[in-house]
């Protein structure tokens, strides 16, 4: 009996040793602070493509969950090994806020100038992350956008602006749902959009300069939001909003466009549901590819990102397979795609809408002020 158990453990230990030996050569470690579909994207599409083009390499991807929480986990892991010679993560995929923090703390390396695709991304967001200068450190993987999802069977005349939304929720109490600010970014995006609509100084909120006194002029907007909250249903998280739409408990709410499409594709949302961008617009953000300052395989990491941001991969992988807005400038991608796919991406939200009403998130310090003001004056 005991010898049997001993045998079992010996063979288990052997399996462990062999298992780690087989993994030993050339592994590119990718940490993705995004949702499951972003992890699947690397596992099923980008990883195998890279392995095919670079024999002897294996791509290993780990997902840490969506939103700033997922990116924070990556940041902490990198920081924890800051004292080491080399770091165990080669490519990171992160949100704007946390990428900015990592650049400020010197945890990322400049690489964009070294790769060919570096000049294909020229939007503001590839140079500045919520006011932090990140030029040279990041390449956008894709752009994501928040929008209002609604059920056209139950909402015949959807609100086209925040003013109309206010009236609509007053008439349909509890039918609009969002997740406050502590439970995920779609609620935060809605709050930011509210401030853009009602707090004034919209341009300054997005582009600076930062003025710590500005928050004193927000009382009216925040009180209105508090009153608005009386008529809405609160949802538990980004997924919680979609989840409540899945069960028909709410008929309208702010969502991430890519998550919305994934839920529809997976059969968890009625395919008839639609998206709209109300006046004056809602925030969106890119997810960035970046390379940690002491990444063990920095050379391969650059190759990987160059492949990931090439027009062909952006067209086939990002747009066609996963319904995301491309990270690099649209004109480079459009030429690599058939017209039908291109149009499908913009069924509900037209490119014109996106250009006019797709906003960035507020400047970092303003963003902090907005969230703290919400905690103090709206949810308290």
């Amino acid at each position, binding site marked *: 009996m005991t010898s049997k158990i001993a045998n079992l453990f010996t063979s288990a230990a052997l399996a462990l040793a062999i298992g780690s030996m087989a993994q030993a050569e050339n592994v590119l470690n990718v940490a993705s602070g995004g949702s499951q579909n972003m992890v699947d994207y690397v596992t099923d599409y980008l990883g195998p493509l890279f392995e095919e083009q670079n024999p002897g390499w294996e791509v290993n991807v*780990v997902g840490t969950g969506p939103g700033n929480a997922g990116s924070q986990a990556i940041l902490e892991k990198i920081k924890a090994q800051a004292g080491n010679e080399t770091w165990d993560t080669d490519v990171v995929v992160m949100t704007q806020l946390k990428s900015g923090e990592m650049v400020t703390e010197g945890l990322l390396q400049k690489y964009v100038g070294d790769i060919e695709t570096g000049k294909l991304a020229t939007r503001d967001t590839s140079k500045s992350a919520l006011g932090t200068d990140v030029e040279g450190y990041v390449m956008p993987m894709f752009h994501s956008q928040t929008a209002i999802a609604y059920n056209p069977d139950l909402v015949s005349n959807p609100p086209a602006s925040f003013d109309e939304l206010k009236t609509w929720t007053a008439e349909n109490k509890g039918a609009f749902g969002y997740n406050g600010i502590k439970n995920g970014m779609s609620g935060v995006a809605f709050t930011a959009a509210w401030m853009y609509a009602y707090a004034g100084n919209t341009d300054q909120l997005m582009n600076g300069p930062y003025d710590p006194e500005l928050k004193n002029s927000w009382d009216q907007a925040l009180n209105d939001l508090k009153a608005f909250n009386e008529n809405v249903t609160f949802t538990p998280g980004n*997924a919680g909003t979609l989840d409540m739409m899945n069960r028909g408990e709410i008929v309208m709410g702010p969502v991430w466009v890519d998550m919305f499409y994934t839920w529809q594709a997976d059969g968890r949302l009625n395919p008839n549901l639609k998206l709209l961008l109300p006046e004056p617009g809602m925030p969106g953000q890119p997810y960035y590819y970046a390379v940690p300052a002491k990444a063990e395989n920095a050379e391969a990491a650059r190759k990987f990102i160059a492949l990931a941001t090439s027009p062909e991969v952006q067209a086939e992988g990002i747009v066609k397979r996963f319904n995301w807005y491309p990270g690099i400038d649209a004109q480079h991608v459009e030429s690599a795609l058939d017209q039908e796919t291109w149009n499908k991406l913009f069924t509900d939200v037209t490119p014109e809408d996106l250009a006019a009403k797709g906003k960035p998130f507020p400047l970092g310090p303003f963003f902090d002020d907005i969230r703290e003001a919400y905690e103090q004056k709206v949810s308290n």
Partner: protein
Amino acid sequence: MTILRTTLTAVLLALLAFAIFGPITNMLIWSVAETWYFPAKLPQSYGFSFWERVFRPQGNAMESLWSSVLIALFTVLASLAVAIPAGLALGRGSLPWRTFFLLLFLLPQAFPSIAVHMNIARIFYGLGLNGTYGGVVLVHTIQGLVFSVWIATAAFAAVDHELEEAAANMGASPFTVFRTVTLPLALPGLMASAIFVFLISLDEFTGTYFVGVPDITTMPLLLFTASMEGNYQIASITALILLVPSVGFMLFIERFLKSDVLAKVGS
């Protein structure tokens, strides 16, 4: 009167069954639902395409499950290695500040782990333990320490002193007494503590992320992202896979966790 009482018992049991199996059934249905949205009360279509997605070769589900189980087994070994002596000291010995020591083992369960794990990771990087199986096993051992030590203590405390004394009187050395009398009598309790530790390790997430990733991935890591973002099919399937060993052990545990040991846990 008896009929009334029987009916009442039956109704209460039915309610309990509903409360316990309702949520679990919900999960079973989600794991085979392909489309399910309002206003349908049950899925509009069923299928196994999400199972295929979880078990696709690139998805590493089997590899993760395998390393989860291996880590759990080694965590059990490590836990027993420290919990048996500690349990002896706490259950049989004459330890000063005994209650204080017992409480000390409660600490890792008591502190919200979000704030501590980065510091733990920093120390593990310093020791070169990050990304190794040993490191993950150690983190899991600490998380399960309160269960392994408290149950082991109870197991040793429940062993009849007189049997040990009888053996000692017949001239057996202390170690022989331990090996031939105390340990076999405490074994069911120790098995129970091993089962608790195995399952805690199987479900552990944060520690594995900070210490294991990227070299080691376990099943809960796959589950956590899917669950947090509402990918109910994937999360349900992963949970179901994790549930198999759990339920197996649960049905099994009664054989090891004898009532006289249970009576002494944590005291």
